[in-house]
């Protein structure tokens, strides 16, 4: 898992942008440790196409020493007649998705992500994990 030195800085903020035909909803979760199954703090899920600005983690409190996970869930409501076209739409997500943290060192810090797409449900998930030191 990647890490970022945020120290005692607050607030630490998240910004997500993506260019896609799908409906996107981003959620952010903060855990006490990497092994925690459930978070102690959640960000209000948002649509990155409408909420384009920075959003504070844990309501602006210090988040040093925690684990931050970001999940963006994509649903395609325009049905694709074949997987070829669907894969091209997913490639657009992979090529345009940017999640970044503001307030650490360096700042802003782009978070690496993994993408998994599901043709049968015409959905896609982009997940990121980051240790905030």
């Amino acid at each position, binding site marked *: 898992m990647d890490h970022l030195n945020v120290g005692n800085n607050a607030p630490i903020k998240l910004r997500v942008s993506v260019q896609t035909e799908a*409906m996107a909803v981003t*959620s952010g979760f903060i855990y006490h440790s990497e092994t925690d199954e459930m978070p102690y703090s959640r960000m209000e899920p948002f649509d990155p196409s409408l909420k384009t600005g920075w959003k504070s983690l844990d309501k602006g409190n210090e988040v040093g020493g925690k684990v931050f996970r970001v999940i963006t869930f994509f649903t395609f409501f325009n049905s694709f007649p074949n997987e070829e076209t669907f894969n091209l739409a997913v490639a657009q997500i992979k090529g345009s998705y940017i999640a970044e943290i503001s307030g650490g060192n360096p700042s802003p810090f782009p978070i690496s992500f993994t993408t998994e797409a599901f043709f049968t449900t015409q959905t896609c998930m982009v997940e990121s994990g980051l240790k905030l030191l």
Partner: protein
Amino acid sequence: MRVANVFVFLLLCTGIGYSQGTVPNAELQNLAPPSSPAFVLMDITPSNIIIPENVQAFSIQTINAFTGNSEAANGNYAVEVQPYWYVKRENMNFFKYNNLTSSKSQVSTVDDYDGMNIFGDIWKKASFSLALMDGTFEVFEETQSFISVGARTRLLSLRTKKQIDGFKEQYKRYLQLMRSQQVLDILANSSLSSAEKNEKVTTLQEFIAIRNDFEEVVQSKPFFALDVALAYSHFLGDKSSGFEDTMGRFGIWASGDLALYTPTIGKNSYVHFYGIFRYLRDGINLEENGTELFSVDKLDFGGKIELEFDRLSFAYEFIKRDSDMDEGSRSIGSIRYRINDSFAIHGGFGENFRSEGTTIALFGIQWGLENNSSVRLSPN
């Protein structure tokens, strides 16, 4: 081996290249009839008045045409590509893709969307096609080959205020669900893989219900759509019959679709009223000596009515051709049935131009290439 057979082999190879897969598989995956302008130009499609709705980055189409005067022409193949899907999109989101616009400079909520870009489909639905056809085309005694190129797009697309409001309403329901405790508990659970999270979310009863309603709104047909197309075909010539290669046919046309939603008949039922206007520079006309072709200008205009009941649709079209030559008209009834989500058949039956009262039958399928599919092209 006919030129067409070589051509289809190349098409399949090209398609496999596009699919980027390691195993050359193909699956019949069609929601629409063969409709590329390269085909329509030559009057061999089951319907000449076509307003396709499906999006398909790359497709292969084939048509069999049987007439009373000529042998079965089974060497008709086309590829059609929508470049939109192969080009990186800038400033794209769900609303823009569905042509919603806002009069506000800064959009922060879904309610800020208050209009529609009626020209928003021009680039998204632009497609280019290439076809190779063998046939007598009611002119030649022997089967001859033509190569065609074509392009089409949707010039205008109009949705009703009710349709636009439907987008907003379903968006709010969807966002509310994705913010709910049950969805967040799934997404936040770090012990679940992405696939497990996806399965748990997409199998929630609320998700399925909202998704179905949302898809119904998004995939509802525009109240009015106007498609435009142009195509050019080239006669490849036949030295054994004394023909040099030359221009075959050039055409440019517009098709309008007025779609009336009829929910009292069925959930996905529409009554369509279509109109078409087409200009042709037709070089497929034989001089009396039987070895030379000549060109004439022609105008086609006509209409079509279609009853669409979810999987099944019936249509009748009539097109009058205005030219110095007496070519009659095209009067064809057609039927389309979608057997399942991956396969549909489309047939036409009636009289075509130049058929001189002879009944013809046209049958077509279209499929896209993809990975992980059921039909193996090269099983080694």
